[in-house]
């Protein structure tokens, strides 16, 4: 087995572009583009349990929170995938979404989330017992 011991990886031709070969060998892709730039698990919109590149969480009100990056994104066009914990009742379906584009954010420094719960016929805000968040995109 070969091993590389380094503290950082930087592209030679272009600093932000390191190419890796696909599993099947038919394609190549940019390493940096495929790496998650931030992720977090949070309890009740109040506590970060574990994370990468997340400085803080702010609980604004029931179901409304802001997560702030340590290192900011390059723009507000990043991709977010989220999962919210089960609400606990029959037909409950918890989802986490983000607020409008202004909260997705011009500086790339925060994402403003809103969590909703289907409690049978109408939706209402809720604080997920466990919220999971992943960000992909370009860091500044």
């Amino acid at each position, binding site marked *: 087995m070969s091993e590389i011991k380094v*503290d950082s990886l930087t592209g030679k031709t272009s600093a932000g572009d390191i190419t890796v070969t696909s599993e099947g060998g038919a394609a190549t892709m940019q*390493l940096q583009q495929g790496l998650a730039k931030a992720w977090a698990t949070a309890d009740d919109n109040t506590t970060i349990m574990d994370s990468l590149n997340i400085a803080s969480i702010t609980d604004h009100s029931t179901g409304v929170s802001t997560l702030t990056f340590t290192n900011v994104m390059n723009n507000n066009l990043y991709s977010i995938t989220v999962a919210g914990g089960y609400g606990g009742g029959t037909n409950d379906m918890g989802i986490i*979404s*983000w607020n409008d*584009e202004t909260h997705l954010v011009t500086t790339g420094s925060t994402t403003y989330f809103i969590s909703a719960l289907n409690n049978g016929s109408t939706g209402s805000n809720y604080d997920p017992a466990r919220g999971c968040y992943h960000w992909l995109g370009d860091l500044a």
Partner: protein
Amino acid sequence: MAGKIIADQIEHSTAGSLDTSYVVNGSAKAWASMTGAGTASVNQSLNNSSITDNGTGDYTLTNTNAFNYADYATGCGSQWRRSLYTAAQTSSSINFYTTQPDASETALADSGSTGFSVTFTGFGDLA
């Protein structure tokens, strides 16, 4: 290509070591940030060649480089108390619908919400 290193493991001086299989297998092979309002469009993406607006709340993304199989792992996100979910996927494309928790499981209007955005991430093996 400027240079090539073949290695099975990388090690940081303080943060630990990692098999490079996690780098290759653990990297997202596709992701996209899309505007769903009106005619759907892609804002920013990796490994995406086009988006097709199939109708209300119904989108199909086509990959530039195909996955090795159809059953790759996907994650979805949506703006404003809605949810995006996968309806069908092949190695080279994926079809999504939007819904929200206070409605039945049907595709919802993708207009009327300025800048309404949805996102997708795909993990698995490329061909």
